[in-house]
Structure formats: C-alpha cells, structure tokens
C-alpha cells in the first residue's frame, strides 16, 4: 500500500486522502488530472475564508471590466443600427467655419450633380425650454401634414412636461411672442432613442417660430444612386459649392465608432490602477503561504508528489478560481448592463442630457469581448501567481514540514 496510508482517516473504508506517486503512475493522464482537481477543490474549501476574499475581489474586477465592455458594445450596436437609416450625404453651408442656413437655390445645383438621386432641404434646430432647463430638438416634418399650430412630441418630452395629446405647449418665438402649439400626437416609445426630446412641427410653424426667411434650409440631405459612389459625389459637391461641407453617413458611423472606442479605452486605462492593486493582492496571496499550507506541501512531497505535480496543483487552483470569478463577474455585469439599467458606467460611456432617452440594450455575447476580458483579468492573475506557485512547489519537504 502507498505511504499515503499514514495520513488516512481512522475510517479505513474511505479512499486515500492524498493520491500518491504510485497511484499517478498507474493511471492515465485524464484520471490523474481528475484527482488533482479533486484534491485542489478540497484544499480550496478547507481554506474558505482566505480564498473567498480573493474570489470576491477577483469577481469585482471582472465585473467592472465586463460592465464597461458590455455597455459600450451595446451602445455602439444601437448607434450603428440607427444610423443605417440616416441619409447617405448631408450637405451644410459654412460661413467663416460655422454652420449657416443653406439657400434653397443650392438644392437645384445639388440635384444636377450626376449620381445624386434626390436632394431635400431640412429644417431643424434646438429650442431651450427654461421651464425644464432642457434643449428640445425641433424638426419640420412636411410628410406628416401638420397644420401651422400643430405639433407631435417625443415621449421623454411629454413625460417631463406632463403633457399629452390635446394639450397646448406654448413656445416662445424669436421675436418674443408666445406661440401656442396643439399636441396632436406623441412619438411611440419604441423609437425613444431617436425621439426622446424631439418636437415635430410644420414648415410654416418652424419658420414662424424662428423667424426664418422662406428660401433657406438648415441643411440638405441627398440620396446617392450607387452608395459606393458616395465619396465621389461628395467630392463633386465640394467642387461645385466651395462653401459647402458634405458629410457622409460612413463618416458619421466611423466617428461614432471612434468616440465609443475612445471612451471605452479611456475607462479601461482608468481601471488599470485597480488591476495593478489586484495583481499585488494576488501575488501577495500566492507568495504568503501559511504554515499549514507549507506543511501540506511538505507532506505531499514526502509521500511522493513531484515538483511538477505541485505546480500542476497550483495551476489548477488558479484555473478554478479564475473560472469561478470570471463566470460570476461576467454574469453579474450582464445582469447589471442589460437588466439593471447600467447605472455604473452609463454617464461616462453614453454621455448625458436632461432629456436622456430611456432605452434597453439588446443583450449579445461577442467572442472578441470574452477574449479581451480574459486577457485583462485572467492573464495578469496567472502572471502574478506563476513565480509564487513555483516557489511553493520547489520547497524541500523536510524544511517545509518543520516550518
């Protein structure tokens, strides 16, 4: 019988507590790993409080990083989906580098450019409402057939002003006159991301409110017959109308993407100090073996465990801890972002406004995200515990047992 018998319980029916070298040699590879995991788990449970602290901090770390990633990825996807329906090209007029109303005559010039499908002038702007200290986005919607004093408002706006269909909303025109507008509809909350602070009105109403001359628009939107030609069309516009600034949908998408990436990256870098603190903790935990643990390793070696086996056990210990922390942290972050309102990082990642749309992100798992998370949480943990683990494994059995 193996030497391990010495350390067995009095109850002789139970299997040997410590598998021995003789056991290992006879069993195939998988069986051996199974025993190692078994032993490691038992050892982890024996030191519950000690490992629980590390596990909690580890879980918190994964949770924080995962929250940032899940939230910003959700926002990016949402923005990309919305922008799919945005016009291919927007043309603005610039004067002294600033945005200026666009003369209606420009629309004809734009329509004559080869490749342009249609060109339409848009009227939109912002309106500051001192009552709620918020900006509304006002937009003329000719396709809705509104009368001069009729408006349709967004859900968040209706909520904050506590108004509904049939009520009147008084707007102050540029010349100081109050302009009562009748609400004939509220935009449904499905489109809240777009329409939270939106106020739709007729072209006449818009011009009345802002005292705008009849032959100007805020900007123009174009459709391009072949979307791959969009940049060529933009080039032609810039040549034909040197004071114009054409903006492509692809550029808006790219800019959004870059902004979200940048915010995400910055938050990650800011969380870096936390990672460093965690590394120090992990290193310290792995390096500071208790007398009991040292004795245990000494006994294991005395009964025939090799240095490699102890190392493997330490590796399993790290893997089991990491796996638990990773799963728990990721699931918590998932719940927080998609069902808990993402309160934690929302102000940093999505920006803020008084009339911020209330929306839910669509849950999704992405392989890249999981790889990034593994690389910033599990990988550093393994690095921090490699050397302490090895130090524990090479200790001499007699020295270890003597303490």
């Amino acid at each position: 019988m193996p030497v391990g018998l010495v350390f067995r319980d009095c109850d002789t029916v139970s299997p040997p507590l410590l598998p021995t070298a003789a056991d290992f040699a006879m069993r195939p590879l998988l069986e051996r790993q199974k025993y190692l995991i078994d032993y490691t788990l038992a050892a982890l449970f024996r030191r519950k409080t000690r490992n629980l602290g590390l596990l909690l901090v580890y879980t918190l770390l994964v949770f924080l990083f995962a929250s940032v990633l899940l939230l910003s990825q959700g926002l990016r996807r949402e923005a990309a989906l919305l922008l799919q329906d945005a016009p291919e090209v927007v043309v603005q007029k610039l004067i002294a580098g600033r945005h200026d109303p666009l003369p209606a005559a420009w629309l004809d010039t734009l329509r004559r450019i080869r490749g342009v499908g249609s060109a339409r002038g848009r009227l939109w702007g912002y309106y500051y409402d001192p009552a709620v200290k918020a900006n509304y986005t006002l937009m003329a919607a000719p396709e809705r057939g509104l009368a001069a004093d009729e408006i349709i408002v967004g859900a968040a706006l209706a909520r904050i002003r506590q108004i509904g269909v049939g009520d009147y909303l008084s707007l102050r025109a540029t010349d100081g006159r109050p302009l009562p507008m009748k609400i004939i509809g509220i935009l449904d909350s499905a489109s809240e991301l777009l329409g939270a602070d939106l106020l739709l009105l007729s072209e006449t109403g818009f011009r009345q409110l802002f005292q705008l001359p009849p032959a100007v628009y805020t900007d123009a939107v174009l459709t391009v017959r072949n979307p791959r030609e969009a940049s060529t069309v933009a080039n032609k516009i810039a040549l034909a109308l040197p004071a114009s600034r054409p903006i492509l949908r692809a550029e808006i998408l790219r800019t959004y993407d870059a902004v979200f990436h940048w915010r995400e990256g910055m938050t990650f870098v800011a969380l870096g100090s936390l990672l460093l603190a965690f590394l120090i903790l992990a290193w310290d935990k792995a390096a500071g073996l208790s007398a009991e643990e040292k004795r245990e390793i000494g006994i294991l070696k005395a009964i025939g465990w090799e240095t490699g086996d102890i190392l493997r056990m330490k590796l399993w210990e790290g893997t089991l801890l990491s796996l638990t922390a990773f799963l728990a942290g990721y699931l918590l972050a998932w719940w927080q972002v998609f069902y808990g309102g993402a309160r934690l990082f929302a102000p940093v990642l999505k920006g803020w406004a008084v009339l911020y749309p209330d929306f839910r992100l669509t849950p999704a798992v992405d392989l890249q995200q999981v790889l990034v998370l593994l690389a910033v949480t599990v990988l550093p943990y393994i690095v921090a515990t490699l050397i302490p683990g090895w130090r524990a494994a090479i200790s001499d059995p007699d020295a270890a047992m003597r303490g």
Partner: protein
Amino acid sequence: MLITPAIVALQLIALSVAGTVLLAASFAWKILRHWNIHSGSELQLRLERRTYLISTLLGFALGAELLSLLLFAQTAESLSGQFVGAMCATGVLNVNPFGFPTLLLKIALFFLAALWLLLNRVDNRGYDYPLVRVKYGLLLALAPLALLEGAVQTRFFLGLEPEVITSCCGSLFSATGQGVAAELAGLPARPALALFYAMAGLLLVMGLAFRRWPRLGPLFAAANLLAFAVAIAGIVAFLSLYVYENPNHHCPFCLLKAGYDYVGYALYLPLFAATAAGMGAGLIAPFRRIVSLQAAIPDEMRRLTGLALVGFVMFYGLATWLILRSHLILLG
C-alpha cells in the same frame, strides 16, 4: 494612436509574454553556463529547480500567444469600420507596413513555443536531461523574437489614425484619400489548387517515409512547414473564394466570422495543431540515438506523426467539403 480595450489587452499580452520569455531566457543563460548533471552542488540543484519555472513560463507564453493570435485577428476585423476602404481585417492590417509582420511574428512565436514545450517534454523523459543545451539554446533565440513582436505590434497600433469627421471639412478628406488596399492578391486558382492537393500527397509520402526511415526527420519537419504555407496560400487563393462564393474576396480572416459559421476555426485549429505536431516529430527524430531517450523518442514520434496526420486529414477533408458544397464555379 487608437485606444480600444482590445488594443490595451493585446499590448498587455505582448508585455507579459515578452516579460516571461525574457525571464526564462535569463535563467536559460545561467543554465547553459553552469549546467552539470553529474554535480551535486547547491548551484546545480538550484538550476534543476529553475527548469520547472522555465517550462511553466513557456507554457504560459504559448497559451498567451494563442489568445493573442485570436484576439489580434478579431481586433483587426472590428477596427475595419474606421479606415476608408478597409472592408475587413486584411484592410486594417494593410493600413501600415507593420500589420502583417505582427501577425507573422505571432504565428512564428506560437510554433516556436509549441516546439520548445515538445522538446522539453521529451527531455524530461530522459533521466539525465540530455537535451538541456539544445532546448535552452532555442529559448535564447525565442527571447528576441518576443521582444520584436512587442515592438512591431506597438508600431502597428501607434500608426493607426482613424479617419473621423474633423471640424474644418467633412468628407473632403475621405474623398481625396485613396483608402487602404483592402484585398490580398491571391495566386491564380488552378495552379494553387493543384499545388494544394499535391502538397497533401507529398506530405503523406513524406510521413510514410519518415515512419520507415526516422533519419528523414528534419525533412519531414520542413515538409510540414511547407504544407502550412501552402495551406494558407490555398486559403487565400481559392478556398476563401469558395466559402464566400465570390471570385474576388480573398480574405483569410472573414472565415472566422459568424456569417460563415465560424468555419475558420474548424480549418485553422487542426492546421495549426497538425503543423506544430508534425514539425515537433521531425525535429526530435535526430535525438533518437541518445541512450536515455531511446524508448521515449520513437514513442513520441509515433504519437506526434499520428496527430499531424489526423490534423491534416481533418483540414483537407473540411477544405474539400467546402469546395464541393460551394455554388461558385471557379474552374469553368
């Protein structure tokens, strides 16, 4: 420079791989200088204990490099929206001259770390560690490569300037810029296809010959490396076209996307594993006469050759199935 979580993560991996490999190399240097298996001195004992640390460090480097390889391809893919003309990962890697070298260095480092671990495994089965000098020599060669990978990758990321809307002009800038080369040029399909299957035949013949005459080991290792290169060239030249059913899309990375059922993973994983196993089998063959390894090496060689064979059969089988099921008619 772009800062995204994926880039932060990749840099973190590169840093830790370079760190661990350098640490391992500094120990390796000491071992190369002072190793004496017949001595019972304290120094020798210390060195023997360090060998455990080195193999653990290298194991870590191998795992990290695999993670880095996967993440690098994914990141290049996800950044493609930010560069004019870049439709997928190929375009992003072409943004500056450091993209593809980074990828190649990652692949090289992965194979070298895998070979080192194989060598180490064989060495540990001999009671007198007969391959100490060979393996620690190889380790010293690995260290500069890891540093180079970190440096080239940093240059690549530093050179990424996203093209976003600036306040002065909107699209002028994207309209005048030519954009990056979004495509890889592939070999003509017919000769590439012939070469692809000829290589499979050659590999089989070489494998059988190697079983019979183990002295052909280095040749077999070279054949595996060549087969890997031919397989990648085949993927670029025609296999990707068959999968995308598009005669112009040569990208080897889009295969990893969900839209193509992640078929890339099923292709690349057996290919990488088979190449590493095949090269390993060929490279350990010359040591079969060492007394303490006479039992271990033939055993390992048999297993590794079998593994390589299974991997390549899986790869070629899947590739052939992809070609047959495709609706694209490339060779009319």
